[in-house]
């Protein structure tokens, strides 16, 4: 192979700084999007199992729409098409004046997309807790909300820690799609390094290592969480 290796490039100014900065953006997108995905997804998961047919239909429709269109396409639509549907003032604000337009759009789009998947996990968790628990809660006079709050959700979350971890890691990995609307996160940074220096292999190696390191760290942390939250006398499932 006819290639001029130069691993030093990764540690040279400004490229090392770029990688760190890129990782920073990647983590920022992932965490912020996760907050949206987790809270909205949990609410939707509750709706999907609730007794009200209206709430169930709403959540089902949401899930079907958001998970059946590729994220890449959704990002584009949110960034370029959505603002044009707004009144002029709002449109201008969304496009220019709101803080970090691209980043914000990416966070919202990834968050909304992942919420549909979190919803399905939460739903399966609640279903795994079983109808008996719901009835037992209702039987002592708790309202539906109380039953979710004190019984179904605490148990469901314990059950779905491993798949939720996977969902978080999916967000982390998919945050790279934000580069398609101009957010210069980790993957975009490594591409930029490659465009500037033509040292593509080094740049991609760096990205690969950083992604794996973060993933393995998250997996290890979540395995601890899973172990800590496991109930006495039961087995934890081992995260992710």
């Amino acid at each position, binding site marked *: 192979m*006819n290639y001029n290796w130069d691993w030093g490039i990764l540690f040279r100014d400004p490229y090392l700084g770029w990688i760190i900065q890129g990782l920073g953006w990647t983590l920022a997108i992932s965490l912020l999007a996760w907050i949206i995905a987790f809270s909205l997804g949990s609410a939707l998961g509750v709706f999907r199992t609730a007794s009200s047919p209206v709430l169930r239909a709403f959540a089902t429709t949401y899930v079907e729409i958001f998970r059946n269109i590729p994220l890449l396409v959704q990002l584009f639509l949110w960034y370029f098409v959505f603002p*044009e549907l707004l009144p002029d003032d709002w449109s201008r604000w969304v*496009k*220019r004046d709101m803080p970090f337009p691209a980043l914000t759009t990416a966070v919202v789009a990834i968050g909304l997309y992942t919420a549909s998947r979190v919803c399905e996990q939460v739903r399966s968790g609640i279903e795994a807790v079983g109808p008996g628990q719901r009835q037992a809660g209702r039987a002592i006079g708790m309202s539906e909300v109380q039953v979710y709050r004190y019984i179904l959700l605490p148990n469901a979350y314990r059950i779905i820690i491993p798949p939720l971890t996977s969902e978080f890691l999916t967000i982390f990995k998919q945050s790279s799609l934000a580069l398609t*609307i101009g957010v210069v996160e980790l993957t*975009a940074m490594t591409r930029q390094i490659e465009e500037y*220096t*033509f040292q*593509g292999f080094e740049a991609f190696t760096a990205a690969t290592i950083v992604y794996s390191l973060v993933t393995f760290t998250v997996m290890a942390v979540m395995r601890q969480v899973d172990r800590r939250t496991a109930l006495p006398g039961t087995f934890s499932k081992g995260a992710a």
Partner: protein
Amino acid sequence: DAGDSPTLQRIQERGVVSIGHRETSIPFSYIGENNEAVGYSIDLCLKIVEAIEEQLGGDKLEVRYVPVTGQTRIPLIANGTIDMECGSTTNNLTRQLQVEYLPTTFITGTKIASKVSSGITELEDMEGKIIGLAAGTTNEKAIKAAIESKGLDIKIVPVKDHSQGWLALETDRIDAYGSDDVLLYGLISKASDPSAYHVTGRYLSFDPYALMVQRNDSTFERLGRVTMAGLMRSGEMAEIYAKWFEPGPTKINMPLSDTLRTAFEIQALPE
């Protein structure tokens, strides 16, 4: 015969020349109406293919088109998947650590495009405004440097590629888009109302385009140089240029500039 050239040996062995092409570098290298790679750079590369056929004894060679992207062009040259890259790649010294460039085939430079109504003509008019730049391009580097050296207050919005940059300009997300002037003319020609946009200002950088071949293969590189010099000497180069730019099938209208004419003359080395 193939001599000591690894590239030529590879081509001879398989009877195939692999040409790396871009998909949307109009009019240099792009997917044409019939879904095949066409363009100015492709035509030039086909001339080199003819020269290779002659060198290897006259048998017809199969041409295989391999699409490349900004990320894959270097690795694919390096590992021998493609024999030459026929796109719109700027020749610079850093990149020469990885590949060899054939003579310059086009000269462009960084300019900005904006809506005529905006009143912007130079970068200096953009105080407090927003400019879009394709991430990782040499234009980005040049404009950032200009902004910094003049101490201008201009916000930069990175975009993924030229068409998204253009869409951002059309939807008023940005006030101007900076890129190679030739690409800007191409983008305007496709706009819904071309008269609403213009390319203005001075060159903020010079970007010579050239075809790329593998390093450490001086025999093959020389074959490429000889072919290109021949085209320039015979005037065929100007004809091919005219086919694509004066105006070309993509409606771009850019008559051969004096600078480029001079460049062709200088590079038309004698036998």
